[in-house]
Every structure is written in C-alpha cells, then in structure tokens.
C-alpha cells in the first residue's frame, strides 16, 4: 500500500506553511540539536503550536529528532526544497554536440540527468521526445530506469524491483523499465561516472518497448555517447 506523502493543506491556513518554513529556518540557523522550546523562543511562537509544527515536520522527515529525542536536526529531505530554487544546470557545447549526435542516430528520446544529493536533476530532456512525467520521476524514482540507477547504488535499498535493476546493471551495464508506465514504451539508463567511479549522472533512452527488451542495438550507440559525456560533464 502506498501512502500519499503530502499532508492535507488547508487554504485557510497559509500562515501554517509560513510557520513551518520559519521552523526549518530556525533549525538551520540555531544548528543541529536545538530543542523545541528554544525554537519556540526564537520564533516567538506559542509553545503548543511549536510542538505541533515540529512533530508534523518530523512526521514528514523534513526534521529528524536527535537520538536523545530532545533535539532536532534538518532532515535529508529538506534538500528537495532546494530543487525548486536551484538554477538550471546547462550542458557545455561539447557535451551538447555528443547528445545531439546520439539523438540523430537513435530516433528516440535521449535525456541527460545528474544525481545531486540523491536527487535526480534532469539537465537536458529530449525536446522531440520529452520525459513522460518529471514530477513523478522525483516522487517515485523506483518506477523509472533513471531512478532505479540511483537506487541500486544505495547498499541499503532492497526489494524485488531493486534486485531486478541490479541484475540488469550487471548484465547490460544499464537499468531498464519496460512497459510499466505505458505499455508500448520503455526506457534505459546508462551510468555516467566521475574519475573515481562514483555515479554522477546518467544518459537515458526512452522509446519503443522492444528496443528496451532487446537493448543491444540501442546500447551499442548509447554507450560510446555516455563514455564521451563523462569527462565533459563531471
């Protein structure tokens, strides 16, 4: 069963959103380990309101409690808030020419993504074959080849989908998604690694499902492009 992650927001309480952001700001300002009472004093909010807000933020993992349960630290999830504000990353013209060549020969969607703080940042989506649903990619990464590639790098990630993706990566050097979002299409994601071998981004292909089920043809053209991109991007 999946839970909807977003809590119910009431339009009549815009102040609550503001207060929640202020609480996050206060924790960032005061540093990890700050208590709810200290936050309440810093912001001049009533205590009961502060306790309710911090507990809501902990439920959503924007805040985490320190092991003694009395203090708070920012959760890794707040990094997602930055995605909205961060300036778009752009490819260098050398990298762009590699991607354009790949798009010309492959006749399908070719996309470039970077992995920043365990988030997927789509740097260059194919204008002729755009990504199906970028918001969903951020929300449910395990349903996309791009997301699976990110998840298999995490040793703690388990589950059938992840195991299958690990097998794909071992066999093809790429993760796959075939017919799971729309029945007739699929996608492939090839890792782009930095000099130390750390996963930095991915070159992805989306297109007809049979080309993903039998990926040799696509991979033969995509792999040299990924290899050529790596030194130009990271």
């Amino acid at each position: 069963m999946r839970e909807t992650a977003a809590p119910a927001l009431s339009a009549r309480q815009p102040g609550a959103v503001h207060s929640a952001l202020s609480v996050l700001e206060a924790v960032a300002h005061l540093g990890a380990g700050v208590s709810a009472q200290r936050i309440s004093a810093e912001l001049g909010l009533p205590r009961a309101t502060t306790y309710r807000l911090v507990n809501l933020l902990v439920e959503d993992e924007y805040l985490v409690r320190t092991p003694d349960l009395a203090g708070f630290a920012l959760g890794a999830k707040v990094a997602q808030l930055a995605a909205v504000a961060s300036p778009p990353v752009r490819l260098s013209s050398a990298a762009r020419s590699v991607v354009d060549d790949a798009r010309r020969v492959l006749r399908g969607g070719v996309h470039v993504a970077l992995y920043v703080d365990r988030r997927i940042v789509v740097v260059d989506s194919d204008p002729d074959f755009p990504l199906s649903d970028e918001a969903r990619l951020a929300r449910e990464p395990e349903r996309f080849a791009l997301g699976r590639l990110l998840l298999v790098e995490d040793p703690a990630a388990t589950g059938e989908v992840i195991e299958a993706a690990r097998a794909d990566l071992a066999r093809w050097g790429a993760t796959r998604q075939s017919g799971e979002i729309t029945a007739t299409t699929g996608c492939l994601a090839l890792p782009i690694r930095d000099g130390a071998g750390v996963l930095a981004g991915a070159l992805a292909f989306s297109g007809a499902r049979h080309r993903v089920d039998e990926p040799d043809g696509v991979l033969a053209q995509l792999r040299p492009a990924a290899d050529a991109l790596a030194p130009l991007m990271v």
Partner: protein
Amino acid sequence: MTALSRAIARPDPVAGFGHRSPLHGLGRRRIGIVDLAAQSVAAVAPAAAATTVVLLVAGVAPGITVPAIVAAAVLSLCVARTVGEFARRFAAAGGLYTYTARGLGTRAGLAAGAAILTGYAAVAMFALLGGGYYATYLLAGIWPALDRPLVTAGAVIVEAALVAFVLVRGIRVSARAALVVESLSVALIVVLLCVLLVSIGPVDVAAVIGARTAGGLDPVALAAGAVIALTAFVGFESATTLGVESISPLRNVPRAITGTVVLSAALYVLAAVTQVAGFDALGGDLAASASPVNDLAAAYGLGGWGVVADIGIAASFLACAIGTTTALVRVLFAMSRDGVLPASLGRAHRRFGTPAAAVGAALPVIAGVPLVLVGAGVPVRDAMHVTLSVGAAGYIVSYVLVCVAAPVFLRRIRELTPVSAVIAGLSACALAAALVAFFVDDAAAGGTAGVVVMVLAVTAAVLIGVLRRRHGLEAIGRYDEPVAAQVLGGVPSPRRHDDA
C-alpha cells in the same frame, strides 16, 4: 531563507547518528495505516467483546450499562492520546515497554515490559482457548458425540500453528490475515445487531441512558461497570509495536490507536443499546441472560443467526490471537535488542524481516499453557476467565506506568504542555483506581486471577532485580533512530549500534 539555503547548499556535518537502526533486521516501512489499524483492532477483538462485555457490565451496573461503556471509552481515548504522545515522537518495536523506559528509566521500563508481556501472553492464551471453545461448540452441533476436551486441544494446536505461520511469513501477511478475519467478524456482528435493532423497533432512550434507574445514578456501580468495560478496549495500543515496520509511523501509529478506540466504542455502544433496548422491550432481565445476543435473536425470530454470530466470534478470537502474539513477539525482540533478554531472541528472519526467533520462543508457551489447563480437566470457560483477568491486569498495570511516564518524558525533552499533563495524570489516577477495583472485585468473586497476578508480579520483581544487577542496564528503550542518511549532512558513526 538564508540559513536554510546555506544549510542545504553546504550542510554542516552532523555526528551522533548511526549507520543503521538499532532495530535493523525488521522489515522497515512496509505496512500502511489500514494494516496498522487492523493490528490494533484484532488485538482488541471487538466482535468477540461486543457480544460478551455488555452482559458482564450489565451484571454490575444494571440500568446504566450504556453510560458505563461510554465512560470506559472516554478513559481509553485519554490513554490512547497519552500513548500517542510517545508514538508521535519515535517509533519503537517495544511499545509501552520502550515508552515507559524512556520516561521513567530502567526499572519502571522493565516493570511495564513484564506487565504488557503478561497482558499479551495471557490474552493470546485466552484467544486460543476462546477459538477452541467456539470451534468445539460449532463442531458439537454437527457431531454431538465427540470428545470435547480433545477437540478443544486439537483446535488450540491448529490455531497456534496458523498463528506461527502468519507471524513468521511476514507482517503484511499477518496484518492482512487479521484484517480480513476481523472485518468479517465485525461485519457479521454489526449486521446482526442492526437487524435486531430494526426488529426491536423504536428505542426507549430513557431506558438506554439509565435515566429511569431507581434512586438516580449510582457512581460506584458506574465505576465498576466502566472497569469491566475497560477490559474490552485493552489491546488498542498494540499498533505501537509495529512502529518500525509501518510507513510514516509517527503519523500513522497515533491515528491507528485512536481510530481503534473510536471504532470499538461505536461497536460496543451499538451492542449495548441493542441488548438493553431489546431486553427492555421484552420485559426481560439482561443481567440474567446466559447469552443475550442469542436470546434476542431467538426472541425476534432470528434463531439461525446465532450460528453466524458464533462463527464471527470464533474468527474474532483467531484474529485476536494473531494480533496479541504479533505485539508480544515484538516486545520480546525489543527487549533482546536492549540486552535484557538473550541476544538470540533478537534475531530477525533474513528473508521475511520478522522477529522469527521470538515467535519460536513465545508460541510453545502461549499454546502450552492452554493445553495443560485443558489437559488437567479445567473447564474451558474457567480457563478463559482466569487468562482474561490476568491479561487485563497486565494491560492496566502497563497503562498506568505509561501514563505516569508520559509527562516525565515530555518534561525531559521540554515539550510538556498543560493539556497533556492533565490528561495523562487523570488517566493514571483513573486507571490505578480501576486496577484496585478490579482486584477487589476478583477477590470478592473468589477468583484465582489475583493469586496468579501476585505470583507473576513477585517473579517479575525478582527477575528485574537480577537483570538490573547482571547487565547494569545503562540505557534500555532503544528505538528506531533516524540513520545518518536521513539527516542533512549526517555523518555515520560506525561504532554506534554495531553491538546489536
């Protein structure tokens, strides 16, 4: 948003978080709120309780049965809110044991652990016996010549095997099994009660709320009735033991336990109104009936429904056995991870992520005691009465401790509010009074439950003393701490928890 953007762009390293949770091994973040609620509802077994508790309450609080049940529901809601104060702040497999340990320290934590283990184990035994009793009762209807104790013993063994299977196979399987079985039995009972209520016709409101009782409201009878009704709610807190395995536990666990109390209360009030109004309309004495729902069904020409209700009750008992054993083994698991019990009990099943070692240790005891009782020739109803009374005492003791622990805990983390303190304090006092009333009532009725509880309490006290000396327990009450990866700039401290 300067400080926040700076923190996101260049997070300061935050130390003190582990690489993995102290409760690693359990299948984390797997079950949603419906399964979570199913766990609590199954442990309460409202279908079985709805048909039995009204009669018991009517016995001590004639005329004010419905108000007594409402009073018990309000008290249970207050306890649920207090337990929720912990559940909103951290996820633990130890439930009330871990909560009390976090508030009042080692000794009280172990006492709450012993009490809640007694509660879960005794109620699991009660549920196995109850399932066996109803299975025998139903089989005897088809085949009157069978050897009843033998069939009951056989049913207990089959049930225990079933419980062991779903518990090891995975929390999803056991939660779903409990959900299906309990919804079925609740639906059966609700349909039967509604059909009865419609047959009875217009309800005399004054009779139901006790306004016609001679001499006005008797507070002592109301309290005595509420204490008995309270035992029909115990178990609602058991979803707390699935905190580690639940999705968004800090949000869902408090909702599940409050929802369980509300749902059970609605069912009990419906059952009480139906039975009180039914006997009022018939001019009969509810307290004198042996089986009010069956009597009413017969009186209103629904005789065949009695069997349906019995199937529902038998199913409810099985769900109750699954639910309470699920909670029990997680408390054992948590105690093992705390170093209180042998480390071998804290082993999780590699594939299914369930506390399999604890299941293996607990089930022989839970199935063994009912088998010995039945084998020794103790009538099943008497065995059920003793196990239920002992179990209820265990639950109430642990509730008292957790209600005392809550304000202390909230004060320590500097998040105590006056409302929380008042609710926890009143709950603790009311529960303590209920406990005393419970023992006085049991002693007056010549029950053996008081003796059993006394023996268990002395044993637990000795064990707690020994354990404290042997381990010098510094910090019990481990919970599912956030791991470094969940913290912005979190740096794992590799030595944390690797002893677990």
